């Protein structure tokens, strides 16, 4: 078991790709926001890439291990220490019973740190997944982010994992996700599904602008501050059933990563976001750009780069290839 000494700021158990198959009842996928870093952490300790690990946001937790195991830390740099000694990221670390892991504030660029433990967390799966949907009280530890004094249930590492833990393993440099060096991020987007509601000038403005990630952003959605949108006649000449504002549409399913336009404020729909609603989605962030959102901090600047569906699907395959044992040294 792992004891929570200090919970940090909304640290939650997630698995990959999360809670699938229930979007028609209104459940979001949940799961890790930067799933590239998440999957590599699991692979380092000999887990399946999908196993349940811990997502730490902005300020990480302090955890005491009550058993011997192997861990790995990836993602943002929270200046991890084991007892009082600094430990490296992107590699496996042996942990002895009684040792304490402490994570601090995410330093520099990057917002989310991932902790994998050999064997994975063993919380009760909820609708097929251990992922936490914190706002709804679903999955994870009693439905929510971890709390002080909780004992987090774990699977014991297998013999193979223990053996693997005795070897030094690290992720090759060129297989790690590359974070921004200057708080500016280039995020890939695909046009659609509702791109024909925005006029040419509106599209140009969207792709040319610098968008500031607002402080009002969390696992449900990322608000963006930037220029206003302009619309095609379709947004005005429509049945009243859509609603009268230009961004109103008859309620429809929302893709994960959709750039949702409620009035004039774009909100990127994140892992715990709404599955359906009545506003247009002119663009969607595909897998290749989505992990970067998980590492962007409020105040960072986003620039959007348009790619085709086919390009996005091929770029995703590249990330999947990197999230494998072949990336381990």
């Amino acid at each position, binding site marked *: 078991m792992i004891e929570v000494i200090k919970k940090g700021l909304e640290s939650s158990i997630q698995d990959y790709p999360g809670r699938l198959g229930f979007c028609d*009842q209104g459940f979001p996928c949940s799961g890790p926001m930067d799933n590239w870093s998440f999957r590599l952490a699991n692979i380092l300790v000999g887990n399946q890439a999908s196993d349940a690990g811990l997502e730490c946001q902005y300020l990480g937790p302090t955890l005491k291990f009550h058993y011997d195991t192997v861990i790995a830390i990836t993602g943002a740099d929270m200046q991890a220490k084991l007892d009082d000694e600094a430990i490296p990221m992107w590699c496996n670390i042996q942990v002895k019973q009684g040792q304490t892991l402490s994570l601090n504030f995410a330093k520099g660029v990057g917002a989310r740190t991932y902790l994998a433990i050999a064997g994975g967390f063993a919380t009760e799966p909820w609708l097929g997944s251990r992922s936490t949907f914190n706002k709804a009280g679903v999955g994870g530890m009693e439905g929510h982010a971890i709390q002080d004094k909780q004992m987090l249930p774990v699977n014991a590492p297998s013999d193979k994992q223990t053996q693997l833990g005795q070897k030094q393993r690290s992720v090759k440099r060129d297989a790690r996700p590359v974070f921004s060096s200057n708080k500016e991020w280039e995020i890939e987007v695909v046009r659609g599904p509702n791109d024909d509601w925005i006029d040419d000038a509106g599209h140009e403005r969207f792709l040319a602008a610098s968008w500031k990630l607002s402080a009002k952003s969390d696992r449900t959605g990322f608000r963006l501050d930037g220029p206003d949108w302009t619309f095609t006649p379709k947004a005005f000449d429509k*049945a009243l059933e*859509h609603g009268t504002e230009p961004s109103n549409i008859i309620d429809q*399913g929302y893709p*994960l*990563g959709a750039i949702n336009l409620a009035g004039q404020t774009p909100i990127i729909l994140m892992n715990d976001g709404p599955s359906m*609603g009545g506003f247009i989605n002119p663009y*969607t962030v595909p897998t*290749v750009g989505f992990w970067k959102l998980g590492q962007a901090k409020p105040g960072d600047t986003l620039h959007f780069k348009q790619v085709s*569906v086919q390009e996005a699907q091929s770029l995703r395959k590249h990330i999947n290839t990197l999230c494998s044992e072949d990336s381990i040294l």
Partner: protein
Amino acid sequence: MIYPEPKFLPGGDRYILIEFGNEMNLELNFMGQGLAAAIKEEAIDGLIESAPCFASTLIHYDPDVIGFDELVPLLSQLIKDLGPSEDLVLDSRIFYFPTVYLDPWSNECVEDYIEKINPDKQKDPELVTELNGLESPEHFARVHSATEYWVASLGFWPGLPFMMPLDPRCAMTAPKYNPPRTWTPKGTVGMGGGSTAIYPDHLAGGYQIFGRIPVPIWDTQKRFPQFEDSICLFKPGDRVKFVPCTIEEFEHIERQVKDGTYVYNLVEYQKFSVKSYKAWTQSIDKNIRF
């Protein structure tokens, strides 16, 4: 209208939105539901889940298994093979909910929004009354509560029903909030566009709000037998009737819910015949308001 050919709209690298039309009617909803059912039946490799709504179905797929270009012709064929909805006769439960219209709780929420976010916002009941050419908020409540609502889909939040009025004499519309509200009381009833919804919990929202029910429509604790199979009360094809009640009655039922003695008021013996429904809608004068 219902489009002659459905539109296949990409949503990034993992989603396709299939739009069947750009209005709200039962036929479009059946196309969306029918496609979702056909996908489940066919078990196409790489299709993860689908979310049908009023006039569209969102498909979530795994592009490592099947690409956009391969998926579109497969889905297109499934849609062509969907049978007509004309002859459908469906089991359809109906739920009766005591409802306080023009209630103090949604009013407090609207006042909070006006004070903190948008001072120009007209109060929701007055806005929908005016836009739909009715005499007063009380008249609006009378019209809104005079029909059964068809649960077209669940989404936005676990268990939230997107509903349309079955009686065309009660069809009304409303704009959505700009910007959206940051909170809405649990159980609030609202309208956006031509759709009516119930907020399952204390949530952000964009619909105009004007009523509240005391009965839970989702329950992670599964305190009532209706939640045995799912923590969401509704399934598509259910119907809802809002029964106007007083605040005293609301509070009485709220207490019953709290101590676990509440009995859900639903009937399960009825079937919904699309043919009979259509024949009936054609026989009435749609311009009448109650």
